């Protein structure tokens, strides 16, 4: 086990295991190719399913004729939304919050209308994937093609084509009289906004437009379902939450959750995009129809066109500031693309946009806007990156206006414990200022900037992280090792961060803990892996179960020594009799005598914790812009983040590096490109450009540790914060390099070149700026 005991985090203190860097438990299978992901599953006598997807972005379905497909070679079943069982329930619990059942169903199999190109219409099960795909081409669908609406401004405009004729804007319970593409309007307000702007010496008002982007996980979605004659349904799939698969599938198919066993396979990346189900209920229906197992996988273009990218957005920001740089008022309007059905994370963007700052007068409006694009889903701190691109760019402008160093200005206005956020909640202990100070004192920030067309940018970001529910079971083996059974699918090494917390409690080595992610029949209810919650919340369940094991072991020692349990004390892994110091036994030895002291030892714990610790990050980036081509090259990147307490520093660094690079891709390379028919023209990894090794420098990380009081080890969620600052950091660095403010994402070479040529008045005529 390499790595020092306290890790290299800033203030390692007295832990044995926490802060060290043990090798992950599930690693060997992953580096040898033995780990089983959803597509690797081999069930005997298994059919293959393929989906027919809409070629139109907006159309009414007049008729569907599946007869010829059903008669095609090897085809065993064809289903459409008509095959959904009857149900009266309107709202179902996703295991992560409620969802509208009618929308969930219609998104999986179109019901009357297709609302985005790629919208599933029917599904075929056949003896092999080639035959299934060929059969989908034999399904005859008659459409009445309608005009698609693709941009937020068009969707919100009067007289825009309506995606749902019966949808009225909901303003916290009040419905608009006319139907609209705006599903929801939300507003936060603290203080008196007009008074705030009246006190300002200068007011900055800017508008931003960001493109839809995708999580980009390398593993396409997959699901295999087997509906037994006894009505019991087993689902194997790549998911961020097996219990959520169970909840959604049960709701959609109107069957009891208890009749479903969801088996989470190894997951090949998710970042929020594998919380919703896309294939599981379809595979289940095909399996019920055919009496055989049905396996489905998506192609890469299906993943882009038909799963859950994160919303593009139009954001207006207005900030009032005094000459000394003190912000007096902040007002924002955020319009997010919900896609085909309501439910964008605009509320989360509203809570995060001014979160790093202590501002007395704040108003934020949020609009959930439907457009003919796939239904958006969560993507790592969903909604926060768009918002931070807007606010942190204006904050940078204000710093230059007030001739203050960008970090100075942020420190002047920084949120601290007790600061009230726009949504009205006051912060507990937080570490934002500490991240600013970490950057300010870092060598990168002090390094001189040489070379022309080079610039340095800074930006901050916040994410509140989640708690939700988790359960674990801990069993002691006779050889003194411990089995940790838990239900949190492991994307970023959480098996190890949980095993380390258990080892710390029991005073044993991390290698002596066997963490296992199991199916929904084998562990207590556990919510999705998401919201950066696993090391925190499932960690709390591990700690509780670990303490119960320790107490039971103390009772076993007492039994062995025939003393009263209260006479036994434990220190690390040694149990000792207070009254007779000669009586002492290690955890390992005691485990060997479990049979004589009462038999097997296994403890369970379920938690639904509060005390969730929000996280802040501040990033520094150096860029060079090629003035002739507009290409932006990232030269250096440093990310400081308040991680509370880094349990396994390597994996905390990995989360920060991965999140930062996704943010860099979002900032300068990635974006959905639609033609005017609403067809995505870059639904592949060639033209949907995710950063490669050659586009990036090393990503240096600074682990700032301001412990979260809500967790015994001080743990805060770390996974989502790092994706929030990069877009604005790059926008500010590009400004520093070429003196031009870019307010559209992606800031790709085309846009940078256009801005450069416009600046020199060299933009060819007819090219609108």
């Amino acid at each position, binding site marked *: 086990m390499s790595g020092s005991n306290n890790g290299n985090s800033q203030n390692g203190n007295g832990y044995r295991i926490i802060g060290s860097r043990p090798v992950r438990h599930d690693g060997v299978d992953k580096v040898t190719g033995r780990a089983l992901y959803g597509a690797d599953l081999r069930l005997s006598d298994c059919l293959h399913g393929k989906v027919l997807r809409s070629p139109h972005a907006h159309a009414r379905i007049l008729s569907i004729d599946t007869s010829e497909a059903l008669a095609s070679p090897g085809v065993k079943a064809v289903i459409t939304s008509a095959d959904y069982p009857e149900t009266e329930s309107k709202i179902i619990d996703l295991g992560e919050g409620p969802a509208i059942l009618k929308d969930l169903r219609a998104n999986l199999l179109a019901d009357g209308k297709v609302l985005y190109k790629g919208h599933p219409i029917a599904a075929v099960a056949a003896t092999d994937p080639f035959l299934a795909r060929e059969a989908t081409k034999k399904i005859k669908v008659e459409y009445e093609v309608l005009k698609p609406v693709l941009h937020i401004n068009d969707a919100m405009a009067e007289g825009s084509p309506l995606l749902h004729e019966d949808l009225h804007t909901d303003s916290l319970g009040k419905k608009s009289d006319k139907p609209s593409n705006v599903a929801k309007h939300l507003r936060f307000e603290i203080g008196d906004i007009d008074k705030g702007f009246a006190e300002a010496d200068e007011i900055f008002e800017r508008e931003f437009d960001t493109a839809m982007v995708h999580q980009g996980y390398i593993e396409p979605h997959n699901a295999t379902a087997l509906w037994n004659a006894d009505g019991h349904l087993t689902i194997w799939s790549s998911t961020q939450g097996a219990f959520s698969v169970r909840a959604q599938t049960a709701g959609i198919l109107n069957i009891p959750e208890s009749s479903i066993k969801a088996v989470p396979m190894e997951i090949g990346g998710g970042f929020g995009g594998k919380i919703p189900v896309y294939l599981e209920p379809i595979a289940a229906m095909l399996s019920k129809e055919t009496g055989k197992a049905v396996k489905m996988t998506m192609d890469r273009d299906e993943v882009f066109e038909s799963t859950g990218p994160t919303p593009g957005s139009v954001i207006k920001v207005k900030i009032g500031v005094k000459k000394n740089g003190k912000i007096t008022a902040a007002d924002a309007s955020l319009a997010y693309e919900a896609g085909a059905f309501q439910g964008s994370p605009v509320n989360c963007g509203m809570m995060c946009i001014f979160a790093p700052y202590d501002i007395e007068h704040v108003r934020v409006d949020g609009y959930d806007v439907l457009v003919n694009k796939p239904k958006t889903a969560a993507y790592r701190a969903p909604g926060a990156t768009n918002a931070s691109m807007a606010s942190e760019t204006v904050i940078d402008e204000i710093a230059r206006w007030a001739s203050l160093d960008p970090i100075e200005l942020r420190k002047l206005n920084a949120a601290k414990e007790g600061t009230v956020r726009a949504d009205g909640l006051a912060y507990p202990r937080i570490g934002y200022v500490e991240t600013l100070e970490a950057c300010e004192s870092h060598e990168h920030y002090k390094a001189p900037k040489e070379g022309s067309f080079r610039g340095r940018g800074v930006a901050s970001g916040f994410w509140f992280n989640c708690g939700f529910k988790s359960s674990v079971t801990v069993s002691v083996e006779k050889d003194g090792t411990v089995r940790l059974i838990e239900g949190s699918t492991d994307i970023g090494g959480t098996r190890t961060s949980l095993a380390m917390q258990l080892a710390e409690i029991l005073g044993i080595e991390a290698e002596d803990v066997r963490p296992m992610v199991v199916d929904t029949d084998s562990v207590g209810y556990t919510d999705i892996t998401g919201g950066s919650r696993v090391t925190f919340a499932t960690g709390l369940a591990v700690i509780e179960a670990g303490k119960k094991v320790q107490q039971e072991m103390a009772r076993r020692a007492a039994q062995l020594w025939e003393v009263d349990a209260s006479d036994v004390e434990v220190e690390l892994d040694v149990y000792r009799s207070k009254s007779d110091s000669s009586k002492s036994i290690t955890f390992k030895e005691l485990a060997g005598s479990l049979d004589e002291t009462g038999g097997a030892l296994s403890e369970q714990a379920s938690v639904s914790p509060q005390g969730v610790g929000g996280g802040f990050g501040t990033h520094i980036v150096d860029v060079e812009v090629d003035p*002739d*081509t507009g290409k932006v090259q990232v030269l250096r990147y440093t990310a400081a983040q308040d991680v509370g307490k880094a349990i396994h520093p390597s994996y905390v660094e990995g989360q920060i590096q991965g999140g930062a690079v996704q943010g860099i891709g979002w900032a300068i390379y990635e974006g959905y490109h639609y033609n005017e028919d609403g067809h995505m023209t870059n639904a592949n990894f060639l033209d949907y*450009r995710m*950063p*490669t090794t050659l586009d990036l420098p090393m990503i240096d990380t600074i682990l700032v540790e301001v412990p979260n009081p809500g967790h015994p080890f001080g743990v805060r969620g770390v996974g989502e914060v790092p994706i929030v600052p990069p877009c604005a950091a790059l926008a500010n660095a590009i400004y520093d390099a070429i003196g031009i403010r870019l307010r559209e994402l992606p800031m790709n070479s085309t846009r940078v070149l256009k801005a450069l040529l416009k600046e020199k008045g060299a*933009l060819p005529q007819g*090219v609108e700026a």
Partner: protein
Amino acid sequence: MDAFDYFAPDNLSEALTLLATPNKTSRPLAGGTDLIVQLRETGLKCDQVIDLKNLAELTQFQSEGGKGWTIGAAVPCSEIYENAEFASQYPGIIDAASLIGGIQIQNRASFGGNLCNASPAADAIPALIAHSVTCQVASKSGTREVNVEDFCQSPGKTVLSEGEILVSLKLPATPKRFGAAYQRFIPRNEMDIAVAGAGSSVVLSEDGKTIESLRVGLGAVAPTPLLVQEISDKLKGKEVDSATFEQAAEIARSYANPISDTRGEDWQRVHLAGVLTQRTLQIACERAQAAL
């Protein structure tokens, strides 16, 4: 991908016979990095795939003893740039061979395949134009030579007629005081297809101060790759200086008439045609001067 039959003939005449099989659509296969994607994603009609990688004529790669080199149409890019002797004489070709896709693609993709795909993006072709490459075409009735700048006729269409195969590329020996370079603009640093590309070659005077002759090829800025003859005619004899390079860029821009698509805007491609011409001419001259 619809079903098809697969053949891997080991001699050219059998390959030509197979390619000419009546009422069957036959497609030649070299590296496959274009063909397999098209079969899988565009539903390209195909009854037979004829794998040409066992044909000696298409996998040959050797110097013709001072009279230039021959590269088989199916030779993968990596094999080309791994040949040190070749690399020292044809820097522009090496630039092109080592830029296409990642290592995995370069171990399969061939110049022949790139030419036959005739994509307007034409990733490697401007470098071939700069090096005055000629294409050796064979059919049942014999062989013929086509200048590489004439090989692509329109997007996806080449000069090859029914039953003809591109067998190899002939590269003339590089004259003294010769320099060449190829660059393409891609948004990332790898894995992208060219938004615009330019290949330039020069032969300098004895003192290395003037350009005796030059060739500039452009890619992704017109339906087919272009040899900008006007640059060769107008700038012959000019000084090796930025004014000349600027003139060349001006002429190059005038020949570019690109489309706008996912990868780039039309005005952007026109602008880049000029920038890349300027840069590759400058590097070509520097390389030629270095060899004086």
